[in-house]
């Protein structure tokens, strides 16, 4: 007993020493850092975030101009990173699942092309993919004067894909109010209908009125509401006019102006990230599907399910359990890999915040610290979302 207690005590003692050691090292490092910074007259602190940035950014999801602060630049970069990561995740998942299924197809061509793709794309560094796609996207596209176009509204050239946007006009407010009010009315109707339905079903159980009849009733009501809504819209467009103006790109002296432009850097980055990650996802999907016992497929077949139905309702749901954890890892990798954007001038967080801002202010420690923290938080957020999804799908089973 006594021995046990002393060992326990010793365990705690050593852990305490370990902690002190770690803290000591950290303290020493930070002390040296502060000493060095002070000695060299380098400004410290986060005040720089309020300073005027004074440089332009080619692509931003929020309004930004040169007179905004470094703090705003941070958000521009962060949103651009999230955009690339989000797009990459969507496309790589779609392509990855397709490839993974194709890899197991009994079609000779599909199977072998998929496996050649996986073998080729997984074994080449992402940075090379990036350079290659940037080049491959930029090279065949014509200059602005020879743009490819669809109906004089969509333009494609080596400055990007120009698409028209909607801009507010005089009627926008009226439209917004009317639509808002009618939506609220519809919501109210639906809520009360739901209430009546639930009370009706409870009473139906006692009075034996069939469920079908009630749902039929609510369905016709929903139909009328939809019709009414459409009527309101048509009336508005006849009497008030269109809610938005179309802002189509117009060719100026050098480039198009107006509309929105999807820059080639974004296209190349999303392409490279999703093509690269899809190869990994395909392998994960394949392993997941292979892990589903053959008996399940046979049982689905004998029940008369078509191959695609058995894939959708029997195989994939079971495979998902094995797929999700490694898939999460791939999403995390993709997000972290999006930081390579700097290599092809896409203005993501690393490129403009840990790049340009760092250079203009010289505050390496703060900026690299913030950048790392942001990526850490994104990683944690993705892990959380995926584990929630996993839990939910487990619970559903």
């Amino acid at each position, binding site marked *: 007993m006594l021995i046990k207690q002393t060992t326990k005590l010793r*365990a705690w003692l*050593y*852990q*305490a020493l*370990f*902690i002190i050691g*770690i803290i000591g090292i950290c303290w020493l*490092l*930070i002390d*040296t*850092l502060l000493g*060095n*910074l002070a*000695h060299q007259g380098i400004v410290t602190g986060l005040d720089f975030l309020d300073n005027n940035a004074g440089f332009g950014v080619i692509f931003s999801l929020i309004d930004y101009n040169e007179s905004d602060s470094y703090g705003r630049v941070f958000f521009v970069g962060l949103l651009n990173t999230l955009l690339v990561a989000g797009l990459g995740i969507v496309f790589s998942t779609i392509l990855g699942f397709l490839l993974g299924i194709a890899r197991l*197809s*009994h*079609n*000779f*061509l*599909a199977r072998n*092309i998929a496996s050649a793709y996986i*073998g*080729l794309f*997984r*074994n*080449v*560094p*992402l*940075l*090379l993919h990036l*350079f*290659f796609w940037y*080049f491959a996207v930029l090279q065949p596209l014509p200059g602005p004067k020879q743009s490819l176009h669809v109906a004089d509204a969509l333009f494609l050239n080596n400055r990007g894909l120009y698409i028209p946007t909607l801009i507010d006009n005089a009627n926008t407010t009226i439209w917004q109010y009317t639509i808002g009010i009618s939506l609220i009315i519809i919501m109210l109707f639906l809520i009360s209908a739901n209430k009546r339905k639930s009370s009706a079903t409870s009473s139906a159980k006692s009075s034996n009125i069939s469920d079908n009849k009630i749902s039929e009733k609510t369905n016709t009501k929903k139909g009328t509401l939809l019709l009414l809504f459409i009527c309101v819209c048509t009336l508005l467009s006849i009497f008030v006019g269109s809610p938005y103006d179309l802002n189509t790109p117009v060719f100026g002296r050098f480039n198009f102006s107006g509309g929105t432009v999807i820059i080639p850097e974004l296209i190349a980055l999303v392409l490279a990230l999703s093509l690269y990650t899809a190869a990994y996802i395909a392998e994960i999907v394949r392993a997941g599907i292979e892990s589903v016992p053959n008996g399940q497929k046979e049982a689905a077949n004998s029940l008369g399910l078509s191959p695609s139905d058995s894939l959708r309702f029997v195989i994939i749901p079971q495979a998902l359990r094995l797929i999700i954890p490694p898939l999460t890892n791939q999403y*995390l990798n993709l997000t*972290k*890999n999006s*930081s*390579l954007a*700097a*290599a092809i001038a896409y203005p993501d967080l*690393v490129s403009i915040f*840990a790049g340009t801002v760092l250079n203009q202010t010289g505050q*390496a*420690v703060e900026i*690299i610290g913030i*950048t*790392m923290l942001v*990526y*850490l938080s994104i*990683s*944690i957020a993705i892990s959380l979302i995926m584990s929630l999804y996993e839990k939910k799908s487990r619970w559903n089973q």
Partner: protein
Amino acid sequence: MSKAINTTIIPLKYCIQWMYKNLFSSPIDCVITLSLCLFITWFFPPLLDWFILQATFIGEGSEQCTNDGACWIFVREFLPQFIFGFYPEESRWRLVTAVIIAILFIGIQIVFKKKYLKILTPTLIASYPIIAFILLYGGAFGLDIIETHQWGGLFLTLVIAIVGIAGAFPLGVALALGRQSNLPIIRAFCRLFIELWRGVPLITVLFMASVMLPLFLPQGLDIDKLLRVLICIMLFASAYLAEVIRGGIQSIPSGQQEAATALGLSYWHTTRYIILPQALQHVIPGIVNTFIGLFKDTTLVLIVGLFDFLGIVQAAATNPKWLGHAIEGYIFAAFVFWCFCFSMSRFSRHLEQRSHLKAKPTTHPT
């Protein structure tokens, strides 16, 4: 006569059967097959044209690349630089020697009997880094010192990847054990450490190594840039390795540990002789995969100004005399990386299958 007909018909029949089974078994299948065929005929001929038919293989300068295809002279011209970087030409034999010694050592492992290897393996493993360091860097036995800023090319890529993974290994094992420890603070610390490194992109880590790390060190303590990058890559890789090794440790049935404890083995002995040998054998494919990942990631060091393989290719492509041949350089780089990574992944799969075969007869259903 009938014999001859038979020999030609049977393969044909077999062929049709095969095609029916593998290409046209259902309407959807037909559509997929036909569209893929179209894709192949659209996609491959131009590629073949560019790569081989229209390409220029022989010549001296970029002026001779008059065909429409690739200009492989560019790759040939710069090949020594791609491999050795700016390592002085008269000393390149040292790199070759280092590689030959490595192959020799691996050969010894295969040729000699297990009895001798017990002593030989540790000595070889311990001596190789020293031999390699002296050969590459110099400074002993009359070899000139070749500063690390002259290192480059494929050679640097290999150095970073191999040293990175080898250096990360002990730390990875320690972290994996720490994460499984029943001392809460150590466990928490290891977990935090692992998650921290796994949560941030390598590029920020490299940037930290190249420009931020020195601010944390006292002035006058000047650590070589390559060394700083190596240290950070080791820390980064150790976090990934730790997770791989942890998987191996967890896969070992707890009965093993209990049996060892019952035999009176201490924690260290249990870990050293029972747990780790089994765990590591299980995770060799995982380690190889981590190595492949790291090998590909070493290309990022070009962003912090080291001329690794890809960095050298990029630099060569901006040579005023050879402008416009970047794509050939990139494709060559991709090809080399592919060769390395593909063979390693094959190797890892081979190991995986072998361990499965080995494991099957001994594992009992529980």
